[in-house]
């Protein structure tokens, strides 16, 4: 069986760029959503 490790010739930079490409919009979406989630608990926190 033809075996190989997890990393190799296709550069680590390409790997980082690929994960940044998908990570930034995903984190932005999570950030905006968490901002909205705060509204759910805001009334409970008020005196």
């Amino acid at each position: 069986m033809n075996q190989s490790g997890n990393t190799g010739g296709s550069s680590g930079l390409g790997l980082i760029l690929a994960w940044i490409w998908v990570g930034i919009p995903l984190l932005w979406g999570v950030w905006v959503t968490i901002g909205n989630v705060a509204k759910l608990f805001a009334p409970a926190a008020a005196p």
Partner: protein
Amino acid sequence: MASFLDRSHSIAGPGFNRWLVPPAALCIHLCIGQVYAFSVFNKPLAQLLCTAASACPPATAKAISTTPGDWSIADLGWIFSLAILCLGLAAAILGPWVERVGPRMAMFAAAILFGAGFLVAGFGSSIHNLPIVFLGYGVIGGCGLGIGYISPVSTLIKWFPDRPGLATGTAIMGFGGGALVGAPLAVLLMKHFSSATSNGVAPTMVTMGIIYFLYMLVGAAIVRLPAPGWAPAGYVAPTESHGLITSGNVLVGEAIKTPQFWLIWAVLFLNVTAGIGVLSQASLMIQEMFGVAAAAAAGFVGLLSIFNMVGRIFWASSSDSLGRRPTYMIFFALGAVLYALVPTLGHAHALVLFVLAYGIILSMYGGGFATVPAYLRDMFGTVQVGAIHGVLLTAWSAAGVAGPVLINYIRQYQIDHGAAKADAYSVTMYIMAGLLVIGFICNWMITPVAQRYFLKPGAAEAATA
């Protein structure tokens, strides 16, 4: 161009890093997951005519817009339903084609269809023609959804034979995350394009179609298939079946003849029916049970989306060590308990526990989607797992209709018979718990596939050639 998309031209060279494949899959799933956020367009689409006349009165209990000719929310609801229906049909019918042409061609086709769906829907809304919007987002976009959803699944399973749950969970997590990106993106663009006589929905749809098309193309460019016989370092493929994990392969035509396939179909259907029914009513439910404002209810829905997304990777990767059947046992047993507890938590006004219970329920809803490709791989092997997964997604289409109908009908029946709005969800929750008990039994009944359905030794290579 055509040769670049060929299966033969997408085979990885030596040293290719397999961790490039999950982001390629995420490029597709982050885009098509936007379907869960389509409701962000409902209100603007329902106010196209009154906005054009600069005369939108406040929404009434019955209608968002009272201007003659404006579309109703009930009519617009069909766009999402059509998209999910076409997702299931396209995945089921085109699954074998996706396996044959490989992931790059399939992702390219998905990008064209999903992007074109937005363009056609944008055109339909610009001329206020609902059938064109149905055709665009519902049918054309829905077919793109189906092809896009299954296109990276079997590729990921082939790259990660040692961690199939983690791999497919990563991609399908992106589908859950797509709504988190799609909703604020649409809001931003509509705000940018809006004017005194337009709410900007048509140019927003066109812009999103172009953005999603280009973003998905990056995934198609990155994705690679492993060379025949490739395996990760240190991985030894099992030569004998053990438990529910087979070392053989079943073709899609044979798989659908097995009782195991239909039991997994029922498992997915019941898990999704319970979850989607709650998702469709989550905003209204927390407003009626706890009296929170609409903005806070939107926060609740957002939180459920995060649990839905995180559950996909958490449960799917956990299933690699727990096993697929025990993972679904947890979904159904814990889910049934939590559904049964929800009315009590509502009556006790225990908001934090209520939110936590629903968060866990939604994590298992997402986990059910993300774990099922690895379950299929365990039962039927890798050769046509994408096509088998495609047929299985008809369970999603069926649940997409059954879940909301069930929860809406039961709620309305109770209100019509004198139940208070805040109490109208109790029976529904108990019925959902009952559905999960049935799901538990279906999952418990799953046994290894009979030997007669498997390909003969050596035939698997011919089937993938």
